[in-house]
């Protein structure tokens, strides 16, 4: 039998340049085992393969994917064991609109889609990609063509339809077609067009991109939550909730747009022996408070998402299991860079320096957030270069910058935002912080619709909420590129645009992180947007439930969940 080193050499001969580069990085100690596992899964190596390579390279620091334990009953992600059978109740905020795979754009909607529906890949709570409908995937040398091997022997939850590569092609075409005005276009525009998707035989799908993209597998993962794989015959103009067709472990037994969905186990599910539960009901709530009370009382088993403010009682309750998933979800405080008073970077820096971020995190988020450093590179992203110094409150420096910017006596400005989550409180705290450097902020807190339709892109200053993404690409592009469609700060910097181009095209982590450092430094200096914090996605359950998986995006996966044995 060959020793591990020989086996590794064999493996390396079969892998692409990108994959070998990654292995080199691991060997040279440039990346940790955790990062290797994550990047390895992105470029299409299987979990067992990355684990083997990591072991063969003798690098054994932390970062294995979620451990599984098999004591007693059935294994669950995160350890613990469960018994088969039983039903549970999960609470979820009501979907904001019709549950239509094309248009869903909110947490209630995506959590509903992700039960009967499955994605090519699953972006887990550690931002690692796991194979689902795609068994494996690999890029060409420059990351402009990605090939996905499609799992065979998958039957939809109607019990008869077989999944084919054509279904995947049809799904990707539907979501990348501008004519369908789908929500997934926010990720696909400029990357994938319907013509770029083709099947090769019955088990392979090839995506030819508009430009090289090292993170493409994330764009077809659960992060791009609309893109559940549906049969080629599916009518996207139809009513998804009539059938809830999908390859997932559940099928719908009852749906009511107001009260929720009841799911039962799909007998035709492709993963042997799964799911463990007989079914579950996803109950919709208009508000968080009743969900918290329901979990405390016991009529709810799992809360898919709650905020630190409303769920204070859960954080202090030892009889409740709280899951805090690191995410890249955040608030952006934009300052309009093409107009006085924020057209001078000294003034913008001064405002950013007036904030006491650790206080914001503990006061608004109960400590369940990471500090932001005024760029989209959240600490949760492995691409983030953490050597860039964290911006901290410094009032005297801020006052000095105000003088340099010609505003020693301060000025008045209006901050526009909307009334949701902790945003109004954040606005007040910014108002108080800015007062220390003589900036008088008037608050205009609107409802979401008014803010987004009237003020968001036309305000001197504003606060906008951004949901989680598995990679920073959308955050780097839409709100900050000169041509960005959500560029509320009206930030235009050709050097930045070039760097983002380089970043997106970079296929290996080393290259990405090198560019990330330049971007982080540049944005810290220019400060078009203050990123005060990146908050955790919080879920909770009774301690008798194990194996429920949550993502920063707001998915809840119960395939391996059950009642503890």
């Amino acid at each position, binding site marked *: 039998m060959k020793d591990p080193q020989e086996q590794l050499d064999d493996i390396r001969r079969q892998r692409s340049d990108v994959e070998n580069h990654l292995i080199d990085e691991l060997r040279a100690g440039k990346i940790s085992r955790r990062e290797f596992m994550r990047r390895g899964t992105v470029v299409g190596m299987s979990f067992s393969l990355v684990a083997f390579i990591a072991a063969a390279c003798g690098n054994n620091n932390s970062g294995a994917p979620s451990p599984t334990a098999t004591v007693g009953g059935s294994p669950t992600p995160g350890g613990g064991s469960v018994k088969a059978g039983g039903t549970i109740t999960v609470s979820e905020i009501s979907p904001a609109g019709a549950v239509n795979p094309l248009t869903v754009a909110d947490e209630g909607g995506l959590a509903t889609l992700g039960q009967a529906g499955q994605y090519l890949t699953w972006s887990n709570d550690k931002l690692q990609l796991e194979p689902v409908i795609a068994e494996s995937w690999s890029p060409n040398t420059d990351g402009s063509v990605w090939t996905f091997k499609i799992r065979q022997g998958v039957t939809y939850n109607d019990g008869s339809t077989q999944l084919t590569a054509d279904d995947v092609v049809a799904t990707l075409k539907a979501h990348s077609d501008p004519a369908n*005005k789908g929500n997934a276009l*926010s990720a696909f525009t400029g990357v994938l067009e319907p013509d770029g998707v083709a099947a090769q035989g019955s088990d392979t799908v090839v995506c030819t991109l508009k430009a090289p993209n090292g993170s493409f597998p994330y764009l077809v993962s659960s992060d791009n939550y609309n893109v559940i794989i549906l049969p080629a015959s599916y009518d996207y103009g139809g009513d998804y909730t009539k059938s809830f067709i999908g390859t997932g472990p559940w099928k719908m037994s009852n749906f009511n747009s107001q009260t929720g969905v009841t799911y039962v186990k799909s007998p035709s599910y492709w993963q042997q022996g799964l799911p463990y539960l007989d079914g579950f009901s996803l109950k919709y709530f208009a*508000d968080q408070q*009743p969900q918290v*009370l329901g979990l405390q009382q016991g009529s709810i088993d799992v809360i898919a998402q709650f905020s630190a403010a409303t769920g204070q009682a859960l954080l202090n309750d030892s009889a409740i299991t709280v899951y805090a998933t690191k995410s890249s979800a955040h608030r952006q405080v934009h300052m309009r860079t093409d107009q006085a008073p924020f057209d001078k970077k000294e003034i913008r820096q001064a405002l950013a320096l007036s904030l006491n971020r650790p206080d914001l995190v503990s006061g608004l988020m109960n400590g369940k957030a990471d500090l932001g450093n005024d760029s989209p590179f959240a600490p949760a992203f492995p691409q983030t270069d953490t050597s860039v110094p964290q911006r901290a409150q410094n009032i005297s420096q801020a006052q000095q910058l105000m003088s340099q910017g010609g505003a020693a006596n301060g000025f008045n400005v209006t901050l526009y935002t909307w009334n949701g989550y902790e945003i109004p409180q954040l606005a007040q705290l910014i108002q108080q912080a800015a007062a220390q450097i003589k900036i008088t902020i008037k608050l205009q807190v609107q409802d979401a619709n008014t803010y987004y339709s009237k003020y968001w892109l036309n305000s001197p200053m504003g606060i906008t909420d951004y949901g989680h993404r598995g990679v920073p690409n959308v955050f780097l592009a839409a709100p900050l590129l000169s041509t960005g469609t959500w560029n509320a700060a009206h930030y235009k910097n050709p050097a930045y645009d070039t760097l983002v181009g380089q970043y997106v095209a970079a296929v290996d982590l080393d290259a990405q992180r090198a560019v990330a450092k330049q971007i982080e430094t540049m944005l810290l200096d220019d400060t078009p947007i203050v990123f005060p914090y990146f908050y955790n996605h919080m879920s909770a359950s009774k301690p008798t439930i194990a194996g429920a998986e949550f993502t920063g995006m707001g998915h809840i996966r119960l395939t391996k969940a059950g009642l503890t044995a």
Partner: protein
Amino acid sequence: MGRFLLRRLGLAILTLILLSLIVFFGTHVLPGDVGRVILGPFADARAVAELDKQLGADKPLIVQYWTWVSGVFRGDLGTSLAFQQSVSSLLFPALLNSLKLALVAFVIVVPLGILGGIVSALNRDRFTDRAITITGLSSVAVPEFVTGIVLIVIFAVNLNWFPVTAQAPPGSSLLTQLHYLLLPAIALVFVLFGYIARITRAGMIEALDADYTRTATLKGLPQRTVVRRHVLRNALLPTIAVVATQTGYLIGGLVAIEVLFNYQGIGHLLFISAQKKDLPVLEACVLVVGVVYLIATVIADVIYSLLNPRIRYGTAE
């Protein structure tokens, strides 16, 4: 009686037309446009404009009003912007739910409130009167979502006697449904008991002090008969008016309670449709609540007139 009813109905229809105008123009004054609501905040402005055109949202308001009102007359309440399903498929189940909750609360609070008022009045200025009045006033002063949370924490979370939500699972028996509805109904009892008891008490005291009561007492009738035949019949007139207006509130105004108990009634629907700027649903909800108020007042007027011949024969004053 016929003429009275006819006049009352005529007024009701006029009120309804006015209401429809206020509802429609009121909701359209709200900022934000329809296309934006459907396509979401991040949609392209051109796509929004195009959708507005398709939906007729770019037409003059008066034209839109006519389209809406003529639809309502044909029984077509339109399509929900958020849920892409007919408004009636959302509205009528919600109305039915609200009626159930209102009925349970009504059955508890009206007799209780009236009884409280009567006992208060008969024990005027004594301890029992003070106790009932103070309890009633304090419970009215506490907002219903506070009462609701306190009730949930005590009776559902700690004692586990009741469920935390009011929505019974589909297909539940009447008794189970009643069990689910009891806690929110009790929260409503706290809100309404004070009102009803106070009004009944005032009416009772006025009637007890009236000459006809003294006459009845002086001619030797037992107190029970005096109260039942002479006092109550007159004393309850203002109570009926209050109960009628509160019926409208019970059916359409329970936004906080229905949201807190996650109960899919009209109040809950009003809340989410306002949140989602789902104008067709919002308008239909407000209209239905208006109609409920109108029906309740017409019924109250009829009962009032049956009890009070001065109104029935139009000879008052």
